[in-house]
């Protein structure tokens, strides 16, 4: 089966002009490769500042203006160019962004979820996705500042599943949620995958990744250090890189080692 997403040797570099107008190139993601199959939840695990959000934005061609990207991204077997990404964004590829700042502070939640569409079908769909994540219909009329952190996160997830995406890129979707809500959202990712979507699940939490993902990519300072089935992280066998072995040893259940 062709992977829904395949990233090959992706590099993202920031150009900064420092003192004396000298240009400085800052590589933030270096030659990163990964694939996501349809029906698969692939987790990307990395510490803070590893470049996880950049990877997510880079795939969508939404990097800051001072960033340059190189490498190959294939979506559904064909190169994902900037033009193609513009067409697919919000239709086939959905992003679940990292924080509340991704909601427009001046716009009501319902209008943001529906992207301004007011037809009856969109309204019904909006109510359905809200209730799926345990949010009352009344939340539609609220502004982002009237949401708790966990509610805002669920709103962001609701935005992503408004239309049935084939690829979901979730950038740390669960911090701030209680264990039950987090579990419900993760099981929903599994459900979407079972229906044929690919999920790229970005997190800093290896334990969480083990519970939901089929495959785990360990990512450090912008580079892939290990790509392994999540079962490898259950037993610790087959992990080759010292960093991923250290991560594995740090899992609570391996405390005694």
């Amino acid at each position, binding site marked *: 089966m062709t992977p829904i997403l395949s990233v090959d040797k992706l590099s993202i570099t920031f150009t900064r002009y420092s003192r004396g107008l000298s240009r400085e190139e800052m590589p933030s993601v270096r030659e990163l490769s990964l694939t996501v199959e349809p029906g698969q939840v692939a987790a990307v695990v990395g510490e803070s500042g590893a470049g996880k959000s950049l990877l997510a*934005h880079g795939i*969508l061609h*939404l990097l*800051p*203006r001072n960033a340059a990207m190189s490498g190959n991204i294939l979506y559904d077997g064909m190169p994902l160019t900037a033009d193609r990404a*513009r*067409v*697919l*964004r*919000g*239709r086939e590829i*959905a*992003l679940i*962004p990292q*924080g509340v*700042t*991704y*909601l*427009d*502070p*001046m*716009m009501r939640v319902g209008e943001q979820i529906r*992207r*301004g569409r007011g037809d009856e079908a969109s309204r019904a769909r909006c109510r359905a996705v809200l209730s799926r994540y345990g949010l009352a219909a009344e939340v539609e009329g609220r*502004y982002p*500042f*009237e949401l708790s952190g966990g509610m805002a996160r669920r709103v*962001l997830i609701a*935005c992503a599943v408004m239309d049935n995406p084939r690829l979901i890129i979730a950038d740390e979707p669960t911090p701030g949620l209680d264990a039950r809500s987090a579990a419900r959202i993760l099981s929903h990712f599994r459900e979407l995958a079972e229906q044929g979507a690919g999920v790229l699940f970005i997190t800093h939490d290896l334990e969480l990744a083990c519970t939901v993902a089929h495959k785990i990519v360990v990512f450090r300072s912008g580079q892939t250090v290990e790509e392994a089935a999540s079962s490898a992280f259950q037993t610790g066998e087959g992990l080759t890189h010292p960093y991923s072995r250290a991560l594995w040893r740090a899992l609570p259940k391996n405390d005694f080692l």
Partner: protein
Amino acid sequence: MKHRLQFTAKKLVRMALLLLGVSLTAFLLMDASPLDPLQTNIGQAALGSMSPEQIARLEDYWGVNAPAAERYLGWLGDALRGDFGVSLLYRRPVPEVIGQRLSNSFWLLLTAWVLSGGLGLGLGLLAGAFRGRGPDKMIRGCCLVVSSTPAFWLALLLLMVFSVWLKVLPVGLSVPAGAAADSVTLAQRLRHALLPGLTLSVAGAAGIALHTREKVVDVLDSDYVLFARARGEGHILRRHVLRNVALPAITLQFASISEIIGGSVLVEKVFSYPGLGQAAVSAGLGGDMPLLMGITVATAFLVFGGNLAADLLYGIVDPRIRRGAAAG
């Protein structure tokens, strides 16, 4: 409700302090002015031919010999009772002079205010939307040049082009010279207000455009615009940028009242436009203390009213204030 009352009370106290401070500053500046009101208003030659008694009476009229503190407190006491005195130059009650001058200036100020706001906002949005590209560079370049040009110099330039070379617009005044008051048409008034209004508008628009552009760029770089793009939204400018630029735009628009009034002083002087600004200049140079104080207080009041209006509009536009107040 308690919150609103407290807010209003605080505003009123601040306004009282502000008016006190502004009137005192104006008075002290005027007191420190090296111009002798007798010499400027009556003239060296006329003074030379007068008897000492006549001069003493004139000195009394212009308040030259009374101590400064006494004059200020006297003015303040009268003003608090609602008596703003009689203009020394025009020999009519100060509120009457201000009222007449303001009615001349009113349309000029209003047009300049509305035009500069609209033009500035439009250009700022355009530049921000095209940031880094041609239209942005052009708009920013023009605005930088205009905003570093003094308003009176701009006025002289426009005067030269439109009145001296092209001869399409009048050189000055608010009505044709020598025309009877009731024979002046609206079209004539507009023609006379056009150049001063244009000068003020252009000067004001440049600053507003530059500020708006920065705000637009900030919004375009924000996380929520990135997310809107990630969701394939169209009309980002209308849906997200306008909404989020609205608050700073309101602030800029109402803060510009003071700049428009300040600018009008010099611009009216250049165009000999008999408005409030020109009266302020005459009062300042001629030592007409009651009139200058009256104008100072009146304009401070206008500026303060503008700020208050901005605060009230904020409460309507910003959901954080609107909904916060509704809940509390």
